[in-house]
């Protein structure tokens, strides 16, 4: 009698443990399926972003090739022109100032001070002209090539990024998919064992 009761208790406990394991595995399966949904959505978002980056990089590259190269050079040449004009204006104004001061002949330290400042302004303006000229040379000889390379790099990077993401996404999905299949198989085995018992 005692042996029978002990066996009955053993089987009851075994059945309860088996059911609990099934429940736990089903829960794990649901979680994995939810992870699959999230993974799919986040991969869509990443791909959207990566394709956007590629489109922008290609647009910038096209813009640079169509307008940017020429416009930047033109703009730098305009800067040079403005600086040269400013230099001419300063030169003319200094000449006029000298004429005016000479004509007025109100010899004063202030006059000399203003003339000195105008001379120094002229010297600064000459440096500005030289810098504006150097900016053009820098652009034509170095800057343009560098800008082209940067933009090419951006396009290539965006393309490679898409390729990488595609591979990485597939791998992640396969990995999770396998995990889900394993879980499903495990649950089926548990249920079969439970029914046999």
């Amino acid at each position, binding site marked *: 009698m005692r042996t029978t009761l002990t066996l009955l208790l053993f089987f009851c406990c075994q059945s309860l443990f088996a059911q609990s394991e099934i429940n736990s595995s089903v829960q794990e399966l649901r979680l994995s399926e939810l992870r699959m949904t999230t993974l799919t959505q986040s991969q869509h978002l990443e791909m959207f972003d990566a394709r956007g980056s590629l489109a922008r990089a290609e647009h910038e590259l096209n813009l640079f090739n169509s307008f940017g190269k020429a416009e930047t050079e033109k703009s730098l040449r305009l800067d040079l022109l403005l600086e040269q004009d400013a230099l001419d204006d300063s030169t003319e*104004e200094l000449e006029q100032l000298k004429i005016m001061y000479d004509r007025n002949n109100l010899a004063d330290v202030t006059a000399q001070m203003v003339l000195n400042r105008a001379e120094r302004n002229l010297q600064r303006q000459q440096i500005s002209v030289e810098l504006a000229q150097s900016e053009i040379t820098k652009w034509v000889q170095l800057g343009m090539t560098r800008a082209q390379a940067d933009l090419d790099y951006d396009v290539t990077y965006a393309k490679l990024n898409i390729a990488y993401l595609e591979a990485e996404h597939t791998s992640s999905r396969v990995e999770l998919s396998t995990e889900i299949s394993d879980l499903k198989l495990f649950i089926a085995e548990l249920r079969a064992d439970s029914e046999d018992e």
Partner: protein
Amino acid sequence: MNSLAAMVLLCCSAQSSELELAEQACDTAIERGNAFLYSRQTKNGGLSLNATPALHDVWANAETNRSWHIATTSIAAMAWMAQPQDDARDLRIARAIDYLCKSPLVKRPDDWDTDNTWAYVYSLCALTRAGNNAYIEKTHRTKMIRQRAQVIMQELYKYQSPMGGWAYYADETKAVTPNWATSFQTAVAVIGLLEAKQLGWSVDERRLRVAIDTLIHCRLPDGSYTYSVEIIPRVDTGTGIDNVKGGLSRIQSCNYALYLAKQMGYKSPIGHEQIITGLQQLFANHHYLDIARGRPTPHEAYHYNSGYFYFFGHYYAGLLLEMLPKKEAQPFFSPYVNSVVKTQHGDGSMLDFFLDASGKEYGAAFGVAGLCHARNSLK
């Protein structure tokens, strides 16, 4: 034919009636303005030196305020001297002139602030007018005013910019002699120097000639004058100040100075024709000054007009009217009187820009002086 004659008569009668009304308004405004100015003359002869300036007064520097106070007293004295002889007024003129002669010279308020020049130019003008005043001569003040004028002229010369003129800030260089110069302050200085020369007082002829040439240099093809003495003067396009709309008051002061110079034998482009054009420009564009008058921030109105341009310009317009033959001055008289009288407050004061210490006083002094000269144009 009869109706045509009647219409002509009616028009003439209407014009004559308008002129009479303007004359009456002018007389009344002068009397009321005088009453206000008399009430503001203190025992020492000066006007309105405010010992307790308001917190919101635009300028905190005491010496700058003293410069404006001296200038205001000078303009008030000029307003009284422009009127027919009157015993009571003579006493007030004498007290004001004594005060101008005996006050300590206004010092430079700051390294960047040379507003002391306003005291110099206007007290010089007041002293030269006093040099022609019978009561001042009768009371043996002539020597005193001539000596004081000499001192003031020496001070004024120290501030003549190498550009040839005068201005009231030196922030460009902060040098002992400022480099910045304006056309309109130069005009006031030139008027004072020319009047001093007329009296036979000793004037530095070379400096005066340079100042006159500087004013001519400022004159633009549209008849206006640049605000500052520019190396290369040009008319401002758009909403700039260096054109007729931004220079209505400068036109009057500079035209008067250059007209006076021409009268005294200097080479000058200003004759009756240019005076009339300038006055026409003033009244055709008067709304720019009307809009600016009373605004609290300098140069905030269209074409950078400031409130304080108003009476300054009208004063010199009044002087110019006096220079014209009666027939040519007459069409301007009514609009001129109207433009000044409409600004008068109940207490007889006039205000174009808020200055707690001297705003109403310089306004009334300029207003009354301008009306007096304009009234003389009808005689």
